[in-house]
């Protein structure tokens, strides 16, 4: 019985993420538009886009290989699995122990790996631009992320996200320097990973500046839909990650009753709204940086993470 | 009866080569003389082997004990295989007209004379006699080095002769000094030069005289061993003489001189008051090793290169014996045996290489493994062995030398290892350009007999993997003898 319930909750959480992802993207867009004094597209615009895309026929480049066609599914699967392991409104999800934070990052890494390959598959110059830049960004963002993870793991004594969240909610986590550093690092990484301003601009198709868009340039139809969906999922994933680590309140523990679960869900939605708003504010208030400033930006993130870890190593009180 | 047999065995070592020398000097006809040469060396080898079974009692002039029977067997064996090799080699030289029949006759006679001299030097129980024999060996080799009568050959022989005679003079003075040291104790006359007597009484000798004597003997016989800085004659003599002689020089004559040195080392070691001979030998050994290792880099003549490698290995052996102790001595003996076999095998290969390429310049050789696979791989195997890599015998001896030294004198071991590495790098640097890469230079055909070369290498290989217990016991015995 309990197993079935857990199974349902796990499944429910997965579906919830799937449903929320486009909405969240739409929300951020709307917010940005509003901040820029624009009307902006309706909240459900992303859903419309997805539907429209999936209706269209796929125009596949001549040189595209099977890898090109399977990549969207792989990317989607990896991202979705990663996302489904993040406690959103309830910790100790059924399968949460099957992969810890490091594994989640690695899953996202594999998604990136394949999408970068897809960028090279057709053999166009723009795909190459995207892939090479993505590789460079990733090669700095990932270690930074790992360092952040180290910090958190050393604070919480676990890489298991549920336990981390539990620990964060618990009183014995005071204000810590390392925690602050980790927060900064994580935010910077999140921006880079999701290709947001100032690293990349999801709205642009200006050839010389785009990164993520360049890789998926050749995709169309249902493939593109899947890619867009996974991008949205990834964004949601990072926001929920930040939420469950740094705003761990009202994440219900195992065996919580239905109403408390509902409360947890609402709390989660609230956190998302806050996160989306902050993101919009940040994006509107800052300009995109040149691609070759990015290493400095991410290098800073890496340094923050390393510093945090060092502090933790040197003394448990930081 | 049995005494008679053994006496014949011992006398045979001397008589057979002597008679053969006379015959070969008289008999015409290349085929016949070559065969006779081989036959004589074969008989000598048989005599040497017979020493295992019956060992004659030491007389005032001749002596056979564990130490020198090691050398005798080695000498006669390599002498035999080299005779085999020289049969095919000299034949080719006749065809190409580098040698004329009279010179070939002279060559064969000298070869046997050399064998005689070396055997005599080894089994002599009388230090004076030993000196005479080594002197004789030197002179014969001088003549053979000069046999081609080219500018280079004459110069090499002349150089060899002058340096050799100076060395021999020093050695004689040393011998006289030993006699002087012995006389007050042993009394005048023959006994004072009989080694077996000396070694038993030497603790009563005057240490100062012994020290002085050893200095002269070290320099005198050290010249023959080719230790730096007395080595100068060695490379040229190897490079300019006929290859069989190079093989014999490296494989045997150096050993014989070293053997003489060892005898006197034992004499000194038996006298507590005298200065320890070890440090001197260690110093000279390391000096030769490192010096030769660096000299290897600039060599362009293949035979001269391997001559330097002989210096290097003589350095190692002298070092090992200088270190002393059962382990190091064993290693030294093993290394000496392996080096004789390997180096002569290498010279067999080199001789044929020089013949097929028509030159000794390394620059004119290349891709040997393509043009002459057997010869090329034989040479590679030889170099691998001489560089001290497994599975061949020298690896074992070097393992023993280095590891036994490192425990006792780490710094010396470091120098030793350094020298070994430098030498290996140099050898393979040259080997690569000889054996690999695009084939270069002319490639004539050769009707070479590879039997001697591969026989030696097979022995070395076997020694690297498995040493027969009998041999081991024997060597250990000798090692104890050497103290």
């Amino acid at each position, binding site marked *: 019985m309990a197993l079935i319930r857990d199974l349902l909750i796990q499944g429910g959480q997965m579906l919830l993420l799937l449903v929320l992802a486009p909405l969240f993207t739409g929300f951020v867009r709307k917010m940005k538009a509003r901040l820029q004094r624009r009307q902006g597209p309706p909240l459900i615009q992303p859903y419309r886009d997805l539907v429209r895309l999936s209706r269209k026929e796929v125009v596949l480049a001549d040189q595209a290989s099977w890898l090109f066609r399977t990549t969207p599914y792989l990317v989607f699967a990896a991202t979705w699995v990663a996302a489904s392991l993040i406690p959103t409104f309830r910790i100790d999800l059924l399968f949460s122990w099957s992969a810890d934070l490091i594994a989640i990052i690695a899953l996202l890494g594999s998604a990136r790996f394949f999408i970068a390959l897809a960028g090279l598959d057709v053999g166009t110059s723009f795909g190459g631009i995207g892939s090479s830049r993505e590789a460079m960004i990733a090669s700095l963002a990932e270690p930074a992320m790992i360092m952040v993870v180290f910090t958190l793991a050393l604070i919480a004594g676990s890489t298991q996200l549920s336990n981390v969240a539990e620990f964060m909610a618990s009183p014995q986590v005071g204000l810590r320097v390392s925690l602050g550093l980790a927060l900064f690092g994580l935010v910077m990484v999140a921006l880079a990973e999701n290709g947001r301003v100032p690293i990349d601009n999801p709205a642009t198709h200006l050839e010389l500046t785009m990164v993520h868009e360049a890789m998926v340039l050749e995709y169309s139809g249902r493939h593109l839909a899947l890619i867009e969906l996974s991008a949205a999922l990834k964004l949601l994933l990072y926001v929920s990650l930040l939420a469950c680590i740094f705003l761990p309140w009202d994440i219900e523990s195992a065996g919580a009753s239905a109403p408390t679960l509902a409360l947890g869900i609402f709390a989660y939605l609230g956190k998302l709204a806050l996160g989306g708003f902050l993101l919009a504010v940040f994006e509107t208030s800052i300009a995109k940086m040149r691609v070759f400033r990015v290493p400095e930006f991410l290098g800073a993130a890496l340094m923050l993470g390393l510093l945090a870890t060092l502090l933790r190593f040197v003394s448990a009180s930081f | 009866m049995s005494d008679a047999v053994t006496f014949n065995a011992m006398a045979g070592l001397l008589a057979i080569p002597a008679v053969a020398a006379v015959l070969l000097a008289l008999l015409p006809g290349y085929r016949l003389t070559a065969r006779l040469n081989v036959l004589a060396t074969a008989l000598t080898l048989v005599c040497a082997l017979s020493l295992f079974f019956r060992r004659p009692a030491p007389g005032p002039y001749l002596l056979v004990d564990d130490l020198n029977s090691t050398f005798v067997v080695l000498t006669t064996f390599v002498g035999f295989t080299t005779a085999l090799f020289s049969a095919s080699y000299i034949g080719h030289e006749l065809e190409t007209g580098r040698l004329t029949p009279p010179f070939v006759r002279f060559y064969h006679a000298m070869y046997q004379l050399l064998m005689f001299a070396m055997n005599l030097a080894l089994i002599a129980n*009388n230090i*004076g*006699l030993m*000196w*005479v024999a080594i*002197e004789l060996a030197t*002179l014969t080799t*001088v*003549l053979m080095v*000069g046999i081609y*009568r080219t*500018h*280079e050959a*004459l*110069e*090499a*022989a*002349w*150089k060899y*002769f*002058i340096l050799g*005679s*100076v060395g*021999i*003079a*020093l050695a*004689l*003075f040393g011998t*006289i*000094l030993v*006699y*002087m*040291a012995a*006389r*007050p104790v042993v009394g*005048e*006359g*023959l006994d*004072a*030069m009989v080694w077996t007597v000396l070694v038993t009484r030497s603790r009563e000798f*005057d240490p*100062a*005289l012994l020290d*002085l004597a050893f200095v002269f003997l070290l320099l005198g016989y050290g010249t023959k061993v080719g230790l730096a800085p007395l080595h100068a004659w060695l490379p*040229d003599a190897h*490079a*300019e003489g006929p290859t069989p002689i190079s093989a014999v020089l490296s494989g045997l004559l150096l050993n014989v001189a070293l053997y003489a040195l060892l005898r006197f080392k034992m004499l000194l070691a038996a006298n507590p008051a005298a200065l320890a001979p070890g440090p001197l030998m260690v110093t000279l050994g390391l000096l030769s090793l490192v010096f030769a290792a660096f000299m290897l880099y*600039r*060599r*362009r*003549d293949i035979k*001269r290169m391997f001559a330097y490698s002989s210096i290097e290995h003589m350095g190692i052996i002298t070092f090992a014996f200088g270190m002393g102790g059962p382990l190091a001595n064993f290693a030294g003996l093993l290394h000496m045996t392996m080096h004789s076999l390997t180096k002569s095998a290498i010279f067999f290969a080199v001789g044929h290489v020089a013949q097929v390429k028509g030159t000794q310049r390394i620059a004119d050789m290349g891709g040997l493994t393509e043009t002459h696979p057997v010869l090329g791989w034989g040479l590679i195997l030889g170099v691998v062995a001489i560089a001290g890599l497994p599975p061949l015998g020298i690896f074992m001896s070097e393992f023993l030398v280095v590891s036994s030294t490192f425990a006792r004198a780490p710094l010396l071991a470091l120098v030793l290892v350094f020298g070994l590495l430098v030498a290996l790098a140099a050898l393979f640097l040259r080997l690569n350009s000889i054996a690999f890469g695009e084939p270069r230079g002319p490639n004539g055909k050769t009707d070479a007999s590879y039997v001697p070369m591969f026989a030696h290498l097979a022995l070395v290989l076997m020694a690297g993997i498995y040493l027969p217990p009998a041999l081991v016991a024997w060597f250990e015995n000798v090692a104890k003898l050497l103290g």
Partner: protein
Amino acid sequence: MHGIEFDIAHLLAGSLVLVSFLELYQDRLYALLNVYALHALVLAASVAWQAFVQDAPHLYITAAIALVFKAIVIPVALHRMIVRLGIHREIEKAIGVGPVMLTGIGLVALSMVVMLRVTQEADPLAREDLAFALSVILLGLLMMVTRRNAVSQVVGFMSLENGLVLAATGAKGMPLVVEISVAFSVLIAFIVIGIFLFRIRERFDTVDVQALDRFRGERR
């Protein structure tokens, strides 16, 4: 042995050293050969004296050999040779005489020092003799080192050998084998050198070793 005999032996040995110095001093081949003859003569005398003192008749043979071969035959032959080669008037461009002499003196001193370490038990004659012999040997070697001309090098070598003979004869009761070997070696030495000079002359017009060095196997 009585003082007088000792003194004479000592005197002869010492004079041998002196003659070695004369050799070092000479820079003309011709004169050099003459001095060498003198050297051999003194040697013969001292060997003979030793024979008389030790009443060891076989030593007279050695003396005779020294007299005949070294004092007469070899110098004459070498005279002939250098005349034939036209180098008898040649003046050695050797290292300056002064330093050579000084080195020589140093060597003599060295050999004395080394010998005096020998304990007193060994009979004094032998000790002194050995000291002189050693100095003769070293001087001969020095000569070989400082001379460029092959003939004078050979002369140096032979005076070195004289030193050996002196030592051997000084060694009381040393078996016959040694004299034979010495004579033997001198003989062989001379023959082979002769052969070589002959061959070398037939190759090059001079026996100056530097000419030989020109034909070295490998040049850089």
